């Protein structure tokens, strides 16, 4: 007990020292971040210090701080040929991609941000009070020494003795409390925030949505300012080269525009499609040895391709719309910047001035004796706007909150306004959309024709090697029977039995073949009952729910049926599911089939041929497949096919009356 109190001030001293070191490291990491180079190693140091801090706190106070388990940045991917890959770029050595990966990893790590904040603020929020026991004990001891005649403080011995005697026990007594104080702050800063009511409340969601919108608006505006640079580059290139360079420069800026569209999609949730025309087929060699592009002939391929590419770039209206956008986007950019400016000046300027004041003004004040006011940002405002002086200094925080509020309210509408302008020029025009659709249709038609041809070949082969061959065998047997009937009736009988056997096998094979082409239930009962039938044949328990008031066209039903079959087979074969649900519904002019299983998930349409097959099958009808299959399951496949439903007659049976006879 005694020992705990006696050792507490020493521990306080250690923590305070650690927090001061942490501050220095965190502050210097700001500089390192600006130069990038030393940043990862400083980040590692920050991590180590914060973990040390948490470990000491836990050992000395028993307050457990749950930090995410230590992890390293991902290893750069090494290709078989020995090169390293990072974001579509190859590197000879591991160093650069590893460095870039670590930078990216640090940027995405929430735990690291918390550690940095803790190290940066610890001396001010926790360290100051934790230093009190140290100061009391140390100061008390110095005073006692003075009273004993050692040391040279200019204080009367009696006073020194009295204060010293009071201070030393006070320091000892305050020790454990100071440690707990420090531990509480450390935990508050370092532990990830749980799902408190505040985090779940709509207010909080509104705040984070609006804040995100304001930053995204600011980001897009920043990019559109930069885009003006792209315009200038194109303009200069055009002036210098009498427009000859435009195809080249605009291809470069096109890359930037693709990036910008991606950002708009990411930040507004509504992707902007690329409007560019597809790259043309390379020119073919004519019989006379020249290459033809449009109405021009070229003696060699190189020049033909260059000419063709120029035509492709210059003839694409999207090129000119991009240019127009680059020239003008800064204007809506100015408007789009307003929310971010209001929030950053209001909140991070006026509200935070007080908080930020401590980390830099206190050390400066202690060192130089010159104390800067905590209202330094407001003073700057007063300089610019003389009328602002009527507001008392402290009220500037309220002004800041007000500005932040206005900024947040404006964030969404202004972001919408600016992206509307972006879409106006950057999204594909009606004709570009149609062109893209034609291309998709051509692709899916080629796909369908190819699949169908392969399917026909398979059927032909199956018939040729199967039923056809067996019928020949039956015919041969019968011919032999004819001959043997008189001479050897027993052999004839055996032959007959064999012929019957063979014809049975042929029938079985034909039945299987027919099932693969178009299952008979589908033509007899339609999609719903066909799915029910296949569900009954599935080794897993399958629940089928139906909300359908009519029948789709036969080809659509067939595609949907085979898609469901494939999905069920996947669930049984690969997912390790114990239970499958199939939901068939129709809404918004779309037939919707949802197959859910409780397997281990991780289905990837990019890998398995099954899902790709479903996608191809549906693609012929403009249908889509959405795969939601997190590791650990469940897997939900949603298949949609746009189609019309005919005759409002439900799937099953029994409503037909006697009237037909």
């Amino acid at each position, binding site marked *: 007990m005694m020992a705990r109190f006696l050792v507490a001030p020493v521990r306080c001293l250690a923590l305070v020292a650690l927090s001061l070191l942490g501050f220095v490291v965190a502050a210097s990491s700001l500089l390192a971040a600006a130069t990038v180079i030393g940043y990862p190693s400083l980040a590692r140091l920050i991590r180590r210090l914060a973990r040390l801090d948490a470990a000491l706190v836990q050992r000395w106070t028993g307050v457990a701080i749950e930090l995410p388990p230590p992890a390293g940045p991902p290893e750069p991917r090494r290709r078989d040929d020995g090169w390293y890959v990072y974001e579509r770029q190859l590197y000879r050595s591991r160093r650069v991609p590893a460095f870039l990966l670590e930078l990216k990893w640090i940027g995405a790590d929430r735990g690291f941000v918390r550690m940095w904040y803790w190290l940066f603020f610890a001396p001010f929020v926790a360290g100051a009070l934790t230093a009190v026991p140290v100061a009391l004990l140390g100061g008390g001891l110095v005073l006692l020494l003075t009273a004993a005649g050692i040391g040279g403080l200019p204080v009367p011995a009696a006073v020194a003795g009295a204060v010293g005697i009071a201070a030393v026990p006070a320091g000892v007594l305050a020790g454990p409390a100071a440690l707990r104080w420090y531990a509480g702050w450390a935990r508050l800063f370092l532990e990830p925030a749980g799902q408190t009511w505040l985090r779940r409340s709509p207010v909080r969601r509104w705040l984070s949505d609006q804040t995100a919108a304001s930053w995204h608006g600011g980001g897009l505006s920043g990019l559109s300012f930069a885009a003006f640079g792209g315009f200038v580059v194109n303009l200069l290139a055009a002036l210098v080269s009498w427009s000859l360079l435009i195809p080249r420069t605009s291809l470069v800026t096109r890359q930037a525009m693709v990036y910008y569209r991606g950002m708009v999609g990411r930040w507004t949730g509504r992707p902007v499609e690329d409007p560019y025309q597809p790259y043309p087929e390379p020119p073919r060699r004519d019989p006379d040895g020249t290459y033809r592009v449009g109405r021009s002939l070229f003696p060699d391929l190189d020049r033909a391709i260059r000419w063709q590419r120029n035509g492709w770039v210059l003839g694409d209206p999207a090129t000119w719309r991009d240019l127009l956008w680059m020239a003008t986007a800064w204007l809506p950019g100015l408007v789009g910047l307003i929310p971010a400016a209001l929030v950053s000046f209001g909140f991070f300027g006026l509200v935070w001035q007080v908080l930020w004041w401590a980390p830099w003004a206190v050390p400066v004040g202690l060192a130089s004796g010159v104390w800067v006011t905590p209202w330094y940002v407001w003073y700057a405002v007063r300089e610019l706007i003389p009328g602002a002086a009527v507001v008392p200094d402290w009220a500037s925080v309220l002004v800041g909150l007000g500005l932040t509020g206005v900024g947040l309210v404006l964030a969404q509408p202004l972001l919408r306004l600016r992206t509307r302008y972006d879409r106006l020029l950057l999204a594909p025009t009606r004709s570009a959309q149609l062109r893209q659709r034609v291309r998709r249709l051509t692709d899916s038609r080629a796909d369908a024709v190819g699949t169908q041809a392969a399917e026909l070949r398979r059927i032909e082969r199956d018939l040729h090697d199967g039923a056809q061959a067996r019928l020949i065998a039956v015919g041969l047997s019968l011919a032999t029977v004819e001959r043997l009937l008189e001479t050897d009736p027993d052999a004839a009988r055996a032959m007959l039995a064999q012929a*019957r056997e063979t*014809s*049975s096998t042929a*029938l*079985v094979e034909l*039945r299987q073949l*027919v*099932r693969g082409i178009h*299952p*008979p*239930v589908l*033509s*007899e*009962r339609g999609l719903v*009952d066909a799915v*029910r*039938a296949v569900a*009954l*044949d599935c*080794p*897993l*328990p399958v629940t089928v729910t139906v909300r359908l008031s009519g029948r789709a066209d036969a080809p659509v039903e067939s595609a949907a049926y085979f898609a469901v079959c494939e999905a069920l087979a996947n669930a049984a074969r690969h997912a390790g599911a114990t239970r499958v649900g199939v939901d068939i519904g129709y809404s918004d002019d779309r037939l919707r089939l949802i197959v859910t299983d409780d397997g281990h998930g991780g289905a990837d349409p990019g890998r398995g041929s099954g899902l790709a097959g479903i996608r191809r099958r549906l693609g012929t009808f403009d249908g889509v497949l959405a795969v939601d299959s997190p590791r650990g399951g469940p897997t939900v496949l949603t298949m949609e096919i746009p189609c019309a439903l005919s005759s409002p007659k439900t799937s099953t*049976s*029994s409503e*037909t*009356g*006697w009237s*037909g*006879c």
Partner: protein
Amino acid sequence: MRVVLAEDLYLLRDGLVRLLTAHDFTVVAAVESGPELRAALIEHRPDVSIVDVRLPPTYTDEGLQAALDARREVPGLPVLVLSQHVEQLYARDLLADGVGGIGYLLKDRVLNADQFVDAVRRVAAGGTAMDPEVIATLVTRRVDGPLGRLTPREREVLELMAQGRSNAAIGQRLFLSESAVGKHTASIFGKLDLPPSEDDNRRVLAVLAYLHQ
């Protein structure tokens, strides 16, 4: 025994008529479409009818629907349904009324005349004749519920029962005495909570339970 036959392929229809006549059946009507079948069933009220699932004019499951409708009108009207393919779904539909007198076979089974005629007679007598193909898909299934309580041997017996075999036939197949099979069937009925009633009827209900597992 009076038979109504519905089959749209002339060759098969003609062959079936020959086959049945040769086995002392009287074919009172051999029709080729759904509406004709409906009329014939109600007019003749045959001892047994043999019906192809797919019939004109729609070439969907016209024959099956006509048979089901007729059985609603005349409960227990014996029907043997023939098809190029068998589906559990159809088997369930056919057995749903739980009355019996139902057969459901692949057309291939006609090739074995004796077994086929045997099945026709069983159906006419109010029994069932399910194609082994229908049963085969069931065997691979995971079982829970009342059927999970059956022993493997009882499941074998039930499988054969579903095909419509008599206790004697089942005993022959599984190398058991007829009384041993009787014990198994009694145990199956008990485990499936089937009320005591006429044996044929309970057999149908057991098969129905089997299909609905």
